[in-house]
């Protein structure tokens, strides 16, 4: 009997107490059985000691999900996913706060090293603080929340953040400790019914980060989360919720990695941002999920819903992403410009190599008056990859004075890859001004040869030229990560030519 079937049968056979017991054993192994059912949803909720309202919310999402279809409009192609053949919960270790480097899996440390996230950030998990008066920006404090598989293992600088009134913790903890905030905001930007993957996430999400910045507070440090998929056949469903109350500011960075596996692994996260009056949220992503091998085997399916709600007047949300990993990326970080004079930004670098498929872009929904948005997208396609920018800019009837500027540049490396630009523009009032520019070019042989003549290897030359191409976006990243992203870009293009 296939494992999934077996689980279903077993769950049917046992009564509630036995059921609990059955899962207790499983808790030892820290893994829920394969497959998805109401029981699995309950298991996850129970594992997290969630209140009843949370379980209810999940179950509603699950029931909704059962009625939904996987979207097919994106320019990506993959075999049908068997959602019953996945694990929906896996915790590699008992959950506890990591207090020293020794307690972190050396494999994870190695991964960070490879990703180029310097160990000093990991060392911060230890609470090692920089010397007072140290103004080197590379030594700026960064609070880290590390999520391995489905569980958050460490959040650093909690105490110091608390002093400033900032709440930064795993969302599983926030559900218990700050239910009023979670209940108020969760699903308020990405409703449980939003789309197939977001709905799935709502049913089974296991952890992620929660941030609340109180009125008038400028978050004293960068907040950062590292997501890591370790387990085989495990879907990862993080849920991140960031709320910037009136007049506050926060900068948040997420990094993602996964080991090499022959099978494809599913990652379906939901990120919700809420910015109240005069608040600003800067959200940066360096995504380096395993992209699959050179024959296109394995790699992460990255189906992510990220949305920011500029709920208040003069609020601002800015998305910056450097996407180099995943076999398939399906991701459109968006802004709902609800408040008057609010603004949204989307800066993106999407690199595809090998057999990667990227369908990414943004949505800027102008609802308030005098709202503005800016989109700078740099797509780089190499190998046999396909790279699509898909963007939507709309102005509502009442969004008078809405402005958007979009610039989409694509760079092709070699002639077996493809770059595509799919802009949708809708202005429902005549005072909106939308500007759209798009270019597609091939990396110039003459430029590469120039660099190589000056001593750079072919790969170094490609890395240099591409880094030049994406410079405008790199500049938007917090400085310490811009350097790392730059390295990552070069690494991800290895073997792209010749």
């Amino acid at each position, binding site marked *: 009997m296939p494992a999934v079937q077996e689980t279903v049968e077993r769950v049917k056979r046992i009564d509630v107490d036995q059921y609990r017991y059955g899962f207790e054993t499983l808790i030892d192994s820290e893994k829920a059985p394969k497959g998805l059912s109401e029981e699995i949803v309950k298991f996850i909720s129970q594992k997290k000691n969630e209140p009843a309202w949370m379980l209810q919310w999940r179950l509603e999402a699950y029931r909704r999900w059962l009625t939904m279809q996987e979207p097919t409009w994106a320019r990506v192609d993959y075999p049908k996913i068997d959602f019953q053949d996945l694990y929906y919960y896996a915790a590699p270790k008992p959950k506890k706060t990591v207090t020293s480097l020794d307690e972190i899996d050396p494999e994870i440390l190695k991964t960070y090293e490879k990703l180029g996230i310097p160990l000093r950030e990991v060392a911060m998990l230890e609470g090692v603080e920089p010397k007072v008066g140290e103004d080197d920006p590379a030594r700026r404090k960064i609070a880290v929340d590390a999520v391995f598989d489905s569980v958050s293992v460490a959040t650093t600088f909690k105490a110091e953040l608390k002093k400033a009134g900032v709440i930064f913790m795993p969302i599983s903890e926030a559900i218990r400790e700050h239910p009023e905030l979670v209940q108020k905001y969760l699903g308020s930007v990405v409703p449980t019914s939003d789309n197939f993957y977001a709905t799935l996430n709502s049913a089974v999400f296991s952890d992620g980060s929660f941030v609340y910045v109180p009125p008038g507070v400028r978050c004293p440090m960068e907040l950062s989360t590292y997501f890591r998929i370790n387990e085989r056949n495990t879907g990862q469903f993080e849920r991140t919720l960031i709320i910037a109350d009136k007049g506050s500011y926060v900068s948040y960075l997420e990094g993602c990695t996964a080991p090499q596996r022959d099978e494809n692994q599913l990652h379906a996260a939901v990120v919700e941002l809420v910015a109240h009056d005069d608040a600003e949220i800067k959200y940066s992503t360096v995504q380096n999920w395993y992209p699959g091998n050179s024959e296109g085997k394995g790699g992460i399916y990255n189906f992510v819903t990220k949305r920011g709600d500029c709920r208040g007047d003069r609020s601002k949300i800015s998305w910056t992403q450097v996407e180099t990993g995943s076999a398939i990326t399906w991701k459109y970080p968006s802004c709902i410009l609800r408040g008057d004079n609010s603004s949204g930004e989307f800066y993106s670098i999407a690199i595809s190599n090998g057999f990667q498929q990227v369908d990414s872009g943004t949505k800027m929904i102008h609802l308030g008056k005098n709202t503005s948005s800016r989109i700078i997208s740099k797509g780089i396609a190499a190998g046999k990859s396909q790279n699509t920018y898909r963007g939507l800019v709309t102005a509502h009837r009442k969004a008078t004075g809405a402005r958007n500027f979009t610039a989409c540049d694509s760079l092709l490396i070699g002639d077996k890859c493809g770059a595509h630009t799919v802009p949708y523009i809708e202005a429902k009032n005549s005072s909106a001004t939308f500007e759209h520019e798009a270019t597609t070019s091939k990396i*110039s*042989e*003459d*430029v590469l*040869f*120039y*660099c*190589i*003549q*000056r*001593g*750079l*290897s*072919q790969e*170094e030359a490609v890395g*240099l*030229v591409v*880094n*030049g*191409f*994406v*410079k*405008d976006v790199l500049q938007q990243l917090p400085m310490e990560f811009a350097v790392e992203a730059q390295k990552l870009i070069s690494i991800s293009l290895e073997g792209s030519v010749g």
Partner: protein
Amino acid sequence: MALLEVKDLKVRVEEREILHGLTLTVNEGEVHAIMGPNGSGKSTLSHVIAGKPGYEVTDGQILFKGEDLLEMSPDERAAKGVFLAFQYPVEIPGVATMTFLRTALNAQRKARGESEYSTPDFLKKVREVSKSLNIPQDMLKRGVNVGFSGGEKKRNEVLQMALFEPSLCILDEMDSGLDIDALRIAADGVNALRSPKRAMVVITHYQRLLNYIVPDVVHVMSKGRVVKSGGKELALELEASGYAQFEDAA
């Protein structure tokens, strides 16, 4: 000692033979000028020496310091000391000139097993060289050749040459697009690099450049061959009578 030996070189581009058996020997310490009508294959020769892809060598050989140059990748050739100042230097948007210089210099040094330059040493060196070439520091912050005038691009080539200290400098029409003052400055820069260990191949259409950079040997190229070689007087002769007399020889 011979630094560069090109022997009976035949080169095809897209099925068409451009160099039909070219022979040229350049010794250490010498400056050679190559002159010849448009399309005679001067740039092709320089590209093949530097290792630009797209050229098929069907016969002959190129030795550099006695080694088979055609066996080396173009970046290896650069690290070994082959430098080509391009007729048309390209622009590299978003890559600051300073970053480019440093990346290239360190790549070459690394390939040779030398240590990388420290930031202060590197900055000092760039400052010195750019000053002598009248290149403002601001220019080095801009993208490589982006928005540079024709003359500035050429000066940037000489800057790199001075910085990398190659043993063979090939200058492809360094004088095109330079005004008189810029020409003098660039030529001074080149002359400053003349040394008993270094050789130069100066490709030009105009005798004028050779007043500044005085060659030891002048070659006339026509239709993919060297058809005549001589002393610096040959350039003056050409200026007076043109290339017509060599058409038949080729």
